[in-house]
């Protein structure tokens, strides 16, 4: 069975030239919950096939009780963005649509809150799913694959 999510429609308030005058930008952003020893926190995450890792804001780690003090460190960067320091931790990630819920353990990265959305990249997220982006319907469909480690 697949999980289906609507694209988030981000209102722009003016016609978007590249989208034939549409007034909003559809983005493959879904709700994602991160679970730690001190609780859970839900936020929006961008499904990003160009991202190597899955990235959450470091403030979120503290709030759900994940101690990054001695966590492995690394760096990450994106197009036109500066290189940022990140730390890695194993967490529980949860997503759900109206029919189905999925929860698994994954190594993700935490970095400065420079982006609006969590980045749901390959490691820790997309590696476990077959993702179908329905541009016409502005929906994304996620189906767990053979590597999926969760419930």
């Amino acid at each position, binding site marked *: 069975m697949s999980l289906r*999510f*609507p*694209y*988030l*429609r*981000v*209102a*722009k*308030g003016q016609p978007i030239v590249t989208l034939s005058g549409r007034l*909003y*930008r559809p983005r493959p952003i*879904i*709700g994602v*919950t991160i679970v730690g020893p001190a*609780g*859970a*926190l*839900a*936020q*929006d995450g*961008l499904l*990003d096939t*160009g991202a190597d890792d899955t990235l959450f*804001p470091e*403030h*979120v780690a*503290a*709030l759900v009780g994940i101690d990054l003090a001695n966590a492995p460190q690394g760096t990450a960067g*994106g*197009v*036109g963005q500066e290189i940022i320091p990140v730390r890695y931790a194993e967490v529980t990630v949860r997503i*759900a*649509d*109206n*029919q189905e*819920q999925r929860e698994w353990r994954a190594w993700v990265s935490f970095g400065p*809150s*420079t*982006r*609006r959305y969590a980045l749901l990249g390959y490691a820790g997220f997309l590696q476990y799913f077959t993702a179908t982006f329905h541009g016409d319907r502005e929906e994304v469909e996620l189906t767990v694959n053979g590597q999926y480690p969760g419930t």
Partner: protein
Amino acid sequence: MSEHTNGKTRPDRWVYVKNRAKFLPTDLLPYADQWLAWSADGSQIVAHHKDLAEVARMVAESGLEREDVIFDHLPPGGEVTTLL
């Protein structure tokens, strides 16, 4: 709406998306560089503050659990078009 495995009602993402789309960039400008907590149906901002921990505290104070809202960090310049 449907049921979580823990018996709680799961927010309907389709309703959330529909309501969130009603917020224009100008509506969100006052919250630039702040953390927001959106209601599960996306119709209102339940709490906002520069400090995420403070937003979480305000959410708890209003009788909601953290999973009942969606946390969102608005960039300093507000909503922007991104090239990824």
